[in-house]
């Protein structure tokens, strides 16, 4: 999955679960090197 074009707050699916992107970490060259995310609870 390419997280480069995703913004914080965007939703994505991984391993069959839905998550919200909460942080992106870049190196000194501006290259994405890490992300953090939290699960999204879908209420029915």
């Amino acid at each position, binding site marked *: 999955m*390419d*997280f480069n074009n995703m913004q914080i707050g965007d939703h994505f699916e991984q*391993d069959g679960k839905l*998550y919200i992107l*909460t*942080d*992106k*970490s870049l*190196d000194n060259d501006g*290259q*994405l*090197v*890490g*992300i*953090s*995310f*939290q*699960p999204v609870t879908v209420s029915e």
Partner: protein
Amino acid sequence: MSDAIGTIASGKKTTGLQILGNDGTNSYAPKIDSTGNVSVQVSGRKATPKAITITSSTTIVANGGTESIQTAVPSGKKWTIQALQLQILNTADGGEVTGTHSVLCYITNTSGTVSIGNASSINFVKRIEYRGGFVDQTSAYLTGVIPDDHAAQTKLFNGIMLDANSQLRFDYINNTTANQTNARTLKLNVIEEDAI
């Protein structure tokens, strides 16, 4: 004179310098250009040491909030871990914070995940930290550390190879009675190479 690889072969008819080849039998003349320089062909891949810092500061709510911190190795690159440091502070200083917070570590890839370790801190919640090659177990409240042997912990991350399809992931679970508002930090020293 020795016939070892890299020496001038003996008993051969030569014109100028001859180098014995890898076959140990035939010798070859190096190519020398008009300026007297020897042409050399080098093969290999560029390897660059790189320091990675991944931080997260979004609040993780009390009583079950979770968060994942994951590497994002770029497509076409490969990282080999040389050193790693993970720091997750306690959820609050002082006060009547109870419960447990814990972290689980995985390698993720397209076919699933593989757990490689975990740690928990119970009542009077303490920080969870991996540094210097092992989990900081000076806190008597840190429990459930797998592996619990320092030698095994030291080997846990060193040499792990990551790429765009195989990332390192830490799942953090805040089952304490306080929100987790301290930043979580993952630092890596890696060798970055082009993936084949």
